[in-house]
């Protein structure tokens, strides 16, 4: 026996194994693993992301299982990082796994998952009347090429948080334009009451895309052309937005470290009592009111985000939140539909507000009681001008990355305003053209 022959044998084994893998990779899964074939009871697996410190997911599962003796939902909770979730889910679903049957996904996923064959076309599965329970805007965001791929479950939006106490003391109203916000911030900073005027999310990640798309919309522009063929950032609106954000840092209104800020850092600055204003999502409310985590309990107000002077108010707010998708390889589509119909019904949606402290996606469940359950978020939400991100393209992740990397480079002083925007545009255009 020679070394050469051993190597050849090893290679043959490896090739055989690889071919075997390919074959299984192409066909849908044969095994499911979940039992219950003998009786009529069916087990479906539900994959969600951690929402917050409440017990919303297990509570929902318990309530469903109690009222549905023939279906048992089991819960799998994934990691907090949304991209890690996307990676593991695409591995599982893409390999033809029958579980999870139903999974929670980000608001930016429908087009991408539809194109990649990772989600079921729901328009065919649900009766037309089912969709009446959601706002038209939420339905549009979950569609790709005219079909729905995700069932909206709870919503989230961006707000302006402000220090009630300090604005009252300075005799200032809540600002409705960005120019007022900067002027107010400088005034209060000059008194020494706070170190920072306005704190937001400037790190190179998805959150910057949200912050920036709001300002571009306020200035009358957009990120991509309406037919999704090219980037439109290097425009008067884009330049105005970026110049404004740069100026907040340069003038000392926003902390110097803003280009490294994600939500936790900006929230931390605000709850430590260092900042007058903050842009953040609705989840932040509960934390600003928790005495264990916040020094500004009872001193915080919420309002719609401002707009630029001369533009209609309020300014644009990005929305977020979770939607439920169905695995194309799920063996129990009927039960999946039953579960999702229940999950978006008024009983479960009420639990999202009362237990989970987030706003339900079902408009019928957005009752005064629900608004009370989630705090001032509920009252302000109705006044917001929601502007979605350009999620209609399967290449959204590349569009967003082109935006946040270039804008972050400009914010941290490593690129010029127009250089960053034109570079972002060309990357966006390339991404859009390759995804068609």
């Amino acid at each position, binding site marked *: *026996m020679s*070394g050469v022959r*051993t190597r050849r044998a*090893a*290679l043959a*084994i*490896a*090739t055989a*194994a*690889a071919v075997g*893998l*390919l074959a299984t*990779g*192409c*066909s*849908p899964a044969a095994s499911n693993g979940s039992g219950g074939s003998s009786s009529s009871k069916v087990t479906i697996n539900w994959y969600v992301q951690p929402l917050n410190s409440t017990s919303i997911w297990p509570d929902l599962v318990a309530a469903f299982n109690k009222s549905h003796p023939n279906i048992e939902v089991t819960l799998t909770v994934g990691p907090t990082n949304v*991209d*890690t979730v*996307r*990676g593991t889910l*695409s591995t599982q679903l*893409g390999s*033809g796994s029958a579980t999870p049957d139903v999974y929670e996904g980000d608001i930016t996923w429908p087009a*991408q998952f539809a*194109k*990649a*064959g*990772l989600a079921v076309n729901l328009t065919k599965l649900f009766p037309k009347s089912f969709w009446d329970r959601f706002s038209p805007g939420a339905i549009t965001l979950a569609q790709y090429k005219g079909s729905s791929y995700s069932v909206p479950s709870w919503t989230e939006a961006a707000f302006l948080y402000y220090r009630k106490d300090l604005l009252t003391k300075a005799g200032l109203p809540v600002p409705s334009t960005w120019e007022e916000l900067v002027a107010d911030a400088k005034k209060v900073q000059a008194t020494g009451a706070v170190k920072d005027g306005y704190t937001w999310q400037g*790190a*190179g*990640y998805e959150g910057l895309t949200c912050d920036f798309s709001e300002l571009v919309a306020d200035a009358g522009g957009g990120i991509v052309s309406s037919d999704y063929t090219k980037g439109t950032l290097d425009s008067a609106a884009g330049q105005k937005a970026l110049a404004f954000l740069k100026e907040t840092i340069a003038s000392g209104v926003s*902390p*110097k*470290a803003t*280009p*490294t800020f994600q939500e936790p*850092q900006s929230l*931390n*600055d605000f709850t*430590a009592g*260092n900042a007058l204003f903050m842009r953040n999502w609705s989840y932040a409310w509960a934390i600003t009111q928790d005495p264990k985590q916040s020094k500004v309990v009872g001193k915080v107000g919420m309002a719609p985000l401002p707009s630029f002077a001369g533009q209609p108010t309020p300014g644009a707010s990005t929305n977020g939140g979770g939607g439920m998708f169905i695995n194309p*390889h799920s063996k129990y589509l009927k039960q999946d539909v039953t579960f999702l119909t229940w999950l978006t019904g008024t009983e479960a949606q009420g639990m999202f507000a009362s237990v989970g402290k987030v706003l339900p996606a079902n408009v019928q469940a957005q009752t005064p009681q629900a608004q009370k359950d989630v705090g001032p978020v509920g009252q302000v939400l109705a006044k917001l001008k929601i502007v979605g991100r350009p999620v209609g393209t399967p*290449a959204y*992740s*590349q569009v967003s*990355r082109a935006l946040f*990397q*270039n804008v*972050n*480079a400009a*914010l*941290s*002083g*490593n*690129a010029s305003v127009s250089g960053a925007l034109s570079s972002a545009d060309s990357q966006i255009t390339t991404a859009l053209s*390759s995804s068609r």
Partner: protein
Amino acid sequence: MTSTSARASIVGPPALFPPRASRRARISRRRGYLLTAPALLVVALVTLAPIAFSVYLSLCAVTAGADGFDYSLVGLRNYAAALGSQALWSALTFTAVYTVVSVTVQVVLGLGVAIIIDRMTRGTGVVLALLLVPWAMITVVSGQLWSYIFNGVYGLADYLLVVLHVVPAPVTILSNPVGAFVALLVADSWKTIPFVSLILFGGLRTVDKELYAAARLDGAGGWTILGRITIPLIRQSLITAVVFRVLQAFGIFDLPFVLTNGGPGNATQSMAMLAYNALFQDLNIGYGAAISCITAAVVIVFAVVFLRAFKVEEPGG
């Protein structure tokens, strides 16, 4: 003769039994196959198939069909797209520069630490255990610990810089390319110098201490002993440390992922992050596989060249 000693540098000293003793050599050879086979079989079965599969993927356009995925061969299109993108070249540049700088720093300091531990008379085990703490820390957590330390608002790093009068007021270390690079280097070195030291310590332990004493009697200084005795004798361990550190550094992912997310801009975006983005964010499987294969190819070229270079340098004996 020359061929034997040249081979020795990578394979080690000449085999126990010289080729002349043909029966013994045959037994020895058979033993070699027998002893190596189980390990090689496990490695081959578990790793070769996936690697072959991903090379195949890199040549495919992966699209979704009614019954799962459809793999259609597209030749080198993914490679052409990757090599034509500016992002790949900036990631490759960052990764290469980072690898050279970090491995140099870590191997030099790691050798120093290993020599110190090797010379300790008491408490070696305790110090070894302390050293292993950074290496043992879950990488994502050490990324989070350092992002907490380098935080631009309440970070300990800024506090210390201000207290020590290095800077007048807190600076934002992570928002300029050089600062971000240095922060990565510090966090990474903290974690990997112990790894290097441990491997080199393993080598130093096998060096006969009497050699040092003899050299000192001959009047050799510290640096001479280091260059003439220590380094040549732990050469195999040094090669192992350098090679594996280069592999790890070239694949650096967790630290920039947590600490800088590739920023500012894309100044610290590594090759592995590029592959992660393509695979996990863009679900662009063929493209992501191509980037991974390019990364692997670069490192393989390095490994082969490096090992060859060391083989050639070996004096005849």
